[in-house]
């Protein structure tokens, strides 16, 4: 069934978008991530301009992270203080990101920036996750006990001043690294149309040493707020948010996520991380290949303002 999208200005098949939303929702429910890094390339692939895709995906991520954050809130696995401090950074980062997005769009380099950032971020995070989980699986196979992270282990981050007590996570930490991570996630999210969950989760676990129990819930909480901001900012500055596209995607997304959560619970943690690592790495490599091989079409046409 074809439906004409009012902002993207082209007809799409509703069931195709719905299926894409469900597939991405399944993955995001399974791994506890937003799934923007999968959804945005899919939309671009079916002919939606990168600007509309990035701006519209923000709504899809807001919906799926709100439904996730609600259930985590009920289970008391959200650290509101941590989320708030991350958010302060996140807000600054989102503003900066939307500003740069607008600037790059006017220079014709938005597509390149998105592609390079995807390559760097996805290959990096995907590679690290893959490496870490393969190690964990091998250790489990050979019968050695898993190397436990000592909860008291500190790194240089824990020596910074202006400390704050995060009660729900039971950690005592300087606000500077937390704010910095927030800025980074907000910035990257606004430019790439991703919630940044797949970057935030490892950063919280490995850099800030936040207990795993509160990481996913807090990450979803933050994603929810930054993406909600991003919707309004994109709508105000770029006018590229297609509400109809967003609605179809997120209906598919929240349904798919429910099945994904159930599938994820039946799988051991290392295998789950291995799969996610492979998935992220694959998307990163796909972008890298696209950048380095000679494209079939060297030219692109982009509309500037309508003529007077």
């Amino acid at each position: 069934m074809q439906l004409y999208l009012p902002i993207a200005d082209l007809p799409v098949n509703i069931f195709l978008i719905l299926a894409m939303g469900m597939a991405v929702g399944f993955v995001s429910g399974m791994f506890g991530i937003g799934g923007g890094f999968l959804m945005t390339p899919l939309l671009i692939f079916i002919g939606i301009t990168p600007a509309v895709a990035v701006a519209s995906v923000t709504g899809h991520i807001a919906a799926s992270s709100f439904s996730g954050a609600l259930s985590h809130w009920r289970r008391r696995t959200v650290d509101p203080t941590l989320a708030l401090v991350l958010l302060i950074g996140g807000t600054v980062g989102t503003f900066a990101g939307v500003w740069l997005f607008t600037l790059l769009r006017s220079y014709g380099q938005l597509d390149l920036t998105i592609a390079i950032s995807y390559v760097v971020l996805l290959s990096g995070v995907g590679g690290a996750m893959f490496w870490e989980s393969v190690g964990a699986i091998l250790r489990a196979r050979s019968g050695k006990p898993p190397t436990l992270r000592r909860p008291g282990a500190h790194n240089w981050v824990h020596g910074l001043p202006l400390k704050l007590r995060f009660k729900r996570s039971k950690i005592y930490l300087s606000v500077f690294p937390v704010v910095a991570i927030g800025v980074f996630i907000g910035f990257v999210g606004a430019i790439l149309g991703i919630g940044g969950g797949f970057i935030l989760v490892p950063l919280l676990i490995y850099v800030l040493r936040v207990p795993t129990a509160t990481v996913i819930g807090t990450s979803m909480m933050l994603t929810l707020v930054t993406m909600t901001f991003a919707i309004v900012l994109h709508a105000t500055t770029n006018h590229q948010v297609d509400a109809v596209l967003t609605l179809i995607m997120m209906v598919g997304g929240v349904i798919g996520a429910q099945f994904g959560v159930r599938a994820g619970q039946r799988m051991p943690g290392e295998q789950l991380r291995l799969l996610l690592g492979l998935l992220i790495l694959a998307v990163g490599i796909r972008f890298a290949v696209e950048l380095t091989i000679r494209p079939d079409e060297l030219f692109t046409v982009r509309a500037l303002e309508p003529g007077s």
Partner: protein
Amino acid sequence: MSRRGALAIALAALLLAAGAGRAQAERLIASISNHRVTITPEYSGEELLLFGSIERDADTPPHRGSYDLVITVRGPKMTMATWRKEKKFGIWINRESREFINVPSYLSVFSNRPINAIASADVQRRQQLGLNNFILTQRVGTDFADVVPGDPFRAAFVRLRAQHSLYREASNAVTFLTPTLFRVSIPLPPEVPTGTYDIDIKLLSDGALITRTDTAFEIVKVGFEQFVADAARRNGFLYGLVTAMMALFTGWLASVIFRKD
């Protein structure tokens, strides 16, 4: 000026008008099947029909060759940039660009036979017959100019627009039902720009322009499509807030529906 001089000028003007009248003895009458194409949620392309007739009168020279028609449909004007990728530091990036200033967002040329067979290259250029002769103004640095049809940026621009069926040239699209009655179908692609479209109909014979006429139609978003597009453009902030509320509501609804306890 003397009275005789004035009389001579008036006489000359009259003679010229009569001459022009004789040269343009044919009249073109055309009508389009739909003057207002509406974009609704179901829109996925449309086809318009243009019917026309060549009216002859007593002054029409009897020994005229067969008629040729070149019909140009132009969509609303837009300014577009064409970028060319080049390999730099091992990756392909957008390097050079050309701006096409106020060019039609949609451009179709229909004729009854190949344009090269209809008129000489000179007439083609003067009358802007066909995509190759249509003036697409480029900004090259500080200059405004159209360039030769073989220019890589111009060729790529036309090719890319054609890929989306926004530019096209069809040399067998005009059908003569009788020697003076013609029909052409104008296909509108799914990704059609909204606005006013001009149809320019040129009648030629023996390689020369005899007469021309024009008509127009408009493509508008209506109802829901119009409402959403207007809201996004005029009230971006409110539109963003509503979209955000919609996202939160969907998320909340899902967590309620799929709640396990």
